[in-house]
């Protein structure tokens, strides 16, 4: 163990550690605590500058109700789901196939294609922006959920392929060989052996991509203009402009926007972290 377990340290260290951890956690979360406190306040507290004191009224629910009634927040959230869920399904399904192809077949272009996927995944969005926007226009998909989803699926395929390929490559090859000798077709090897075995990777990828896409702001700004297709990140930004001083409503809106990825994270924590730290423990 590194560092030395605190249990093996003198009593004084143990006590101070147990005090220090919650204190540092509190300091770390001050920004988030601040916004939560603000979201339960009323306008009175905000104008009086009461940001850190005890809220004079508890208005979380009425603030949330306000946000839903006076802004298109509900349709933003629905749009976010309409964008995120198909992207997750599309990117994961496609990358199961590309990952399998690159992990278990030897052909000349294999590594080249693999590295192309990786490189494309790191490219700055700005170098894609104008052509992708044009292309989306030409297909008649500008300002539609479909146009945004298509791009997201394509772009996420890079990262997902890297992930799936490495996962499938780590599976014991004997399984495939045995199936081949038994006369199983390549498609059945994929469907009956690879897909069931990659379930943990599929879960990890799904939570990760869900979070990435839910939180996307740039492409929503570039490919979406109107409220009818706008996801919550872009929606919040437009509310930010309108409500410079109405922080309690903006805070409530921010919290609503953060809820789905946070729930996802806590439910699927193990998978989420496994996905993010891919490669952190071995070269």
């Amino acid at each position, binding site marked *: 163990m590194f560092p030395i377990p605190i249990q093996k340290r003198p009593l004084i260290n143990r006590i101070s550690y147990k005090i220090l951890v919650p204190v540092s956690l509190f300091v770390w979360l001050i*920004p988030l605590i601040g916004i939560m406190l603000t979201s339960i306040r009323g306008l009175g507290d905000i104008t009086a500058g009461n940001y*850190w004191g005890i809220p004079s009224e508890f208005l979380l629910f009425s603030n949330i109700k306000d946000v839903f009634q006076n802004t298109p927040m509900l349709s933003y959230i629905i749009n976010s789901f309409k964008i995120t869920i198909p992207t997750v399904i599309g990117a994961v399904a496609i990358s199961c196939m590309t990952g399998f192809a690159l992990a278990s077949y030897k052909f000349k272009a294999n590594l080249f294609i693999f590295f192309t996927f990786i490189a494309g995944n*790191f490219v700055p969005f700005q170098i894609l922006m104008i052509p992708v926007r044009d292309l989306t226009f030409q297909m008649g998909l500008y300002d539609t959920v479909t146009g945004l989803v298509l791009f997201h699926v394509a772009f996420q395929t890079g990262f997902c392929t890297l992930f799936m390929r490495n996962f499938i490559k780590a599976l014991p*090859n004997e399984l495939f060989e045995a199936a081949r000798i038994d006369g199983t077709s390549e498609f059945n090897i994929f469907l009956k052996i690879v897909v069931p075995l990659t379930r943990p990777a599929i879960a990890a990828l799904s939570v990760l991509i869900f979070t990435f896409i839910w939180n996307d702001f740039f492409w929503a700004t570039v490919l979406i203009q109107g409220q009818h297709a706008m996801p919550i990140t872009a929606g919040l930004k437009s509310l930010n402009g309108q409500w410079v001083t109405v922080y309690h409503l903006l805070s409530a809106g921010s919290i609503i926007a953060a809820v789905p990825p946070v729930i996802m994270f806590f439910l699927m924590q193990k998978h989420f972290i496994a996905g*993010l730290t891919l490669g*952190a423990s071995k070269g």
Partner: protein
Amino acid sequence: MGWFSTTPFLNVPDSTQITYRKSSWWKLNQQRLTPWIFLFPGLLLFLVYVIWPIFNSLYISLLQWDGLSPAIYVGLSNYIELLDDEYFYISLMNNLKWLILFMLAVPIGLGLAIFLNQTIFGIRLIKSLFFFPFVISQVVIGIIFSWFYNPRGVIGPFLDKLGLSNYAILADENFATYGIIFAGIYPQIAYCMILYLTGLNNLNIDQIEAGRMDGAKGLSLFKNIILPQLKPATFLAIVVTVIGSLRSFDMVAIMTQGGPYGSTNVLAYYMFETALSEYGYRMGYGSAIAAVLFTIMMFYILFFIYRMYQSEKKGL
């Protein structure tokens, strides 16, 4: 090991196995064709939406084009104009500030990971809560910090005590960028921390014990035994931090939109502003900015690919 260098089919010595039935062509070529069938949808989408646009953007950077009227080929003049563009230099400098300061996320993340790598009651929940900022959208983080920095907002009372009443860092052209970077680094620290926590979890205990037997303690143990073992985590932390720092668009768009007076612009945002905002639809000029950003990023991408290639060669 053991990836078939020849297809199983060819390994079969008995030629009587090759029976020419209806599907024989498919049987013969199944091994060779299957990967391409599986690759087809992903590769097609990726080529259309990622690879082709890169080259298209590089081409557009040689044009003068507003996106509607016919484009005029102008050669390198967009790049030459960049050389004289004050805002381009401001953006480039800001990118550099982002890059350098963002690197702090790596040691801070490591420090936090070491601090939290204990087994006390509730530590799993505590680690998750530390990781929390990374899960939340940058838009929300940006809104939180804008409100945080507002002089009539959260830190107002504290600034009053310091004699800085009504000081708004985001309106101060000398310091606004640092205000945004501080907000941006917050989730990045969480990411680095989680990478190092995973790394610490997978340390080789024998080596550490052996080191301790040899009398290595504290800093020397850390430097000589722990840090080398954390190399994969460090590598990944640096890669994601560099890329994170160059993708600073969201934070700038939410917190300042490049202002005051363009002082917080970064290449990513400046490109967007030139090409797609009320400041004019200068697609060619925007693409030239994007090309500069792309070139910078390409160094890191190639470095990363080179590393992966090395480990692939070892693994094969």
